[in-house]
């Protein structure tokens, strides 16, 4: 049986987690996720975090910066995996915390939480390298399908949180409720846009250079804020050198939580705390470098046959 506290410690130390434990963790987290809404309601105070991208040591720094879970309540805006060398450990840590403190941490889906994307950007390879077979990746992908698509923090007048942005197909938050989200991220449509779109200084909607989602302008943001009685859209999805960036008369913010992204971008990271009065407090942090165990590296393949 899974010993959660011990597993959490082992994950933080990057120790090998047995495949059966990964499977059990995934099954348990799915049982929890299935009870969550497509747009999950989250109470204040909560600390909102952007992309992590497999930078486990920076994720540990993030918890030091924002306060350990469950002391601080967290909302992660997706993109837990790919790019960094510890995608699996990062996602396992977040899942383990979710199972251990279900009400103190919310995970929503990013565009990288998808079978197609992870086969290209590293998570798939990492799983194969660490376990010698594809199954651990498969278990995690099952979990991806159950992740919520977004969250509302603080109820009326609160903060709408998604990974990417708005969709021309979605005018109201309630509309999102009709989607059966348990599926691979589609190539188009509302669900896809929520995970892929970007804000930009454009009039109306524009084609996104990413090939999925849309670019949306200030007007769209204002309309959405007004129509749904919310004060802020908090999203991630784009690297911000300063860790966070407010746009559109403070109607939208991009939060980025992977410092020195890809171990070479030189950016700082941030988390955003929303308090009971819906005040915003940004905390920034830098990449961790002090400890030898923090030197990011990949482990070589387990066995090699000739």
């Amino acid at each position: 049986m899974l010993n959660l506290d011990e597993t959490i410690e082992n994950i933080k130390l990057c120790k090998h987690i047995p495949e059966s434990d990964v499977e059990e963790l995934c099954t348990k987290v799915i049982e929890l996720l299935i009870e969550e809404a497509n747009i999950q309601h989250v109470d204040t105070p909560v600390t909102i975090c952007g992309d992590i991208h497999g930078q486990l040591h920076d994720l540990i720094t993030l918890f030091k910066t924002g306060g350990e879970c469950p002391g601080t309540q967290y909302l992660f805006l997706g993109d837990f995996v790919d790019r960094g060398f510890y995608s699996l450990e990062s996602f396992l840590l977040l899942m383990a915390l979710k199972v251990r403190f279900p009400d103190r941490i919310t995970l929503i889906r990013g565009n990288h939480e998808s079978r197609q994307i992870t086969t290209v950007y590293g998570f798939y390879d990492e799983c194969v390298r660490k376990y010698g077979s594809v199954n651990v990746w498969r278990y995690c992908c099952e979990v991806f399908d159950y992740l919520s698509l977004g969250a509302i923090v603080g109820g009326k007048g609160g903060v709408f949180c998604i990974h990417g942005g708005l969709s021309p197909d979605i005018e109201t938050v309630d509309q999102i409720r009709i989607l059966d989200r348990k599926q691979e991220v589609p190539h188009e449509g509302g669900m896809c846009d929520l995970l892929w779109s970007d804000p930009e200084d454009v009039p109306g909607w524009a084609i996104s250079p990413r090939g999925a989602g849309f670019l949306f302008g200030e007007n769209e943001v204002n309309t959405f804020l007004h129509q749904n009685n919310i004060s802020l859209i908090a999203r991630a999805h784009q690297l911000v050198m300063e860790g966070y960036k407010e746009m559109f008369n403070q109607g939208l913010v991009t939060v980025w939580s992977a410092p020195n992204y890809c171990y070479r971008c030189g950016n700082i990271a941030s988390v955003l705390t929303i308090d009971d009065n819906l005040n915003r407090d940004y905390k920034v942090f830098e990449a961790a470098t002090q400890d030898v165990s923090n030197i990011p590296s990949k482990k070589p393949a387990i066995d090699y046959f000739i």
Partner: protein
Amino acid sequence: MESPGTILNLGPTPRRVKVYLLQGEDWLDNGTGYCVGEIDNESKAPYFLVRNELEAEDVILKSYLEGSIQYQRQQETLIVWTDLSGKDLALSFQETEGCADLCEFIIKMQQDNYSPNISLYYVIPSLTEGDDITELITGPITYPKDPTETNLEAVLDTINQGSNSQFTRTSISKFIIEKEYFLKLIGAFNKAESDKNLINLYTLSEIIKTLILYNESALIEDLLSSEERMLALVGILEYDPEYPNFKACHRDFLKNKSFKTVIPIEKLTIFKKDFHLNFLKDVVLARFLDDQTFNLLSSLIYVNQVEIINYLKDPEILEQLFNIYGDGEIINTNNELKCDGVRMLHQYVLIAKSLQSFQKSEFFSLLVRSGLFRMISFALNEPQSSIRVLGTELIVIIIEQDVSLVNSIDKDETIDNSEPPTQMEHHTEPLKLPDVDNTASDAKNLKLKLSDDMTLISILTRLLVEDKNPGLKIQAFEALRILLDSNIASNANPDIEIDQLKNELRSHRPVVASGSSDDFHDINTNNYFKAFYSQVAPELFNDFDSSINNSFEEISTRIRSDELLYQHLCELISFCTKEHDTSISRPFFLDNNILLGVGRLIAINCRIILKLSAIRCLKTLILSNDNYYCHYIIDSNLLRYFFSYFQLIADQNNLANSTCLDFIEIIVKNCDASSSIKYHNFKMLANYIYRNYKELCGTKLNHVSTGKDLIELVENGFYEDSNNHNNTTTDNTFRNEDISFGSDDEILDRHNASTPINDEEEFDQIEEAEGKNAPLPVNGNGGHIDLFAGTEFKSISNGEKRHREEDEEEEDEQRNYAKNGVHLNGTGNVIDCGNEESANNDLSPKKLSTSIKAKFSNASKKIALSLRSKNAGNNI
């Protein structure tokens, strides 16, 4: 051309130029002429010569390429420089080629040592504001001095400076390779390490990193050209100034690395190289690599892996490997070696997976021919689940590439044919399968040579049903899905479906002219799927068969003991009903009341995940827009399970609630006349829901528009009145519906699908409809044309019409067939399929990849066209 005193003539064509001289702030025009580059016979000094275009004897400019003059090429047509006397000169060429010619001359003069100290830069205007980029094209190179204990900083500087242009990177790389400079660095490293001279160690590490980031493949190959060099390289990189207090242990790791061997291999180097390159990319350099260098390393790895796979494509080596698993005679090999063999091949099959299609296809087919299935049989029966997982993964990877490798539908020659392929007819009895826990010696009797036999499918079914390892279940499920793909045969022949349909058409026409090869495909795939439904499906879906008199309690207990299995089964049912020819699949699912069993899952006390899987399965059925399924769902009152569950969770906001809402929403959306050409099934469902669950829709679905929309649609007769000049009342709408599905029932009769209709009212309606239309009119336009002049076509707006051209073509053809006296039943299958596919296109695009979509629409187009041409022939 006159060129006295020239030994070498690089700018042989005089090029038209204007010569400018800078005076103060202004460039003064010094005349227009023709420019050549020449070398003085005696002094060997090169120079530019410009003669006046009007008077050849008049030399406008003679300027020597000397000293350390820096030439700049600007804007494609300008060469600018300051000569040794301090004059600023510019040549402005009429064409780009002229400028390029003379730049070539400068490069040649510099590199051939006529004027070794001159240099040429390209000035590339930057796209954004800011500094232009200057790229050195040629010039004197500062090469790094031989490393000593005291000059490493200077060496690093030189190498850093050299990284600024491609020219210097290439030159320094060449220098390092030719002078074996890396060996000198290794010497300096060994000295620094024994002296514990940290500063020098860090500097050396930086030097190596910079050199690697030169991104010169020849240089990187040079650094890695032997195991000793590889070890020295990773040794130097153990020291990292970013982490001054720590040192990595790459060398220890590599020295202690023992490679596992299964069979003796001669060409060890390529295998070690693969490991080393990956180690370098993933571990040693992981943090430093930029995208270009990462790609360079990846391509080096790829090239080497191609070599590995080519080496392994040796039948002798493979035979040796597979002989471990016995070849008729019993060979005593220890079990651990056999397991290692599976691990080894898995490793290389994963490598092969990343190669180009033809390369892996060749490799995989050689594996199959050399006896791969002996290994797989061993693996699937091995008590260690990790080995069973690898064995199944081997199957999955290989069938993903090419199903025909394991399933010779029409490519018998790719299979080891020591026995003739078995004909379907001989397989009326289900095959005896070895138990999963059988010993390896029994397992080798497994025959995995599949033409139409179900051995592999049966084995995978067993794995799915009986194995407790959840990963293995997923793999078995995925493998089954590939093997049960309706396009299974089209791997080898992309036109197979069309051929099949053509054959069916022909068989109903007076003149039968069927090509034998077409028949072959036809028979084979049909039998293949028939075999699945007669031999495997009953076993697979047994627990869903609600006609079997097991107590509800008994079944729920069994289901709860392996909910994961039933989740996969629900997905398989969705898949089979969607993908397979309904004439084969539908009778199975209806006769055995499988769908009722699926519905019952929703009511059983099991995990929500499973209930939702069942709901999604029903959703797929509804989206298939199949008249029989739709009637069945309504008549068996199947949705009562759905609604009683929905009632329970209607007030919650969670995934279950969203899945249920989505279920109703797809019905509502498709009732909209503009969304689908064949939407009467959805109207029937909407009416059914309205009749039975109006209150639920009206009260519990307030937060979204779904419930309200449904009620409004039904109460307003689906807003058809405005589009339909014939019918103004709801009653009439109902009649139209009935008539149109009556016509489809006619088509469906041919398939001998059971008609699971017990609701009397519905039944009467159908009878009435059938009575009207059967027998179908053979001549004239009678009632039959009315079928197609009903609401469905009238209500399509013009914009929609364009998109639905293909479907309409089919419908038109259908009409023509009736006119021409060909019995409609003959085309039944075509029309049925065409409509189903188009329904799929409209309703669940996310389920279909674009390529498949394209294929479907092409297929229906082709069918329509071929029908048209045949018809035309008939008319003439």
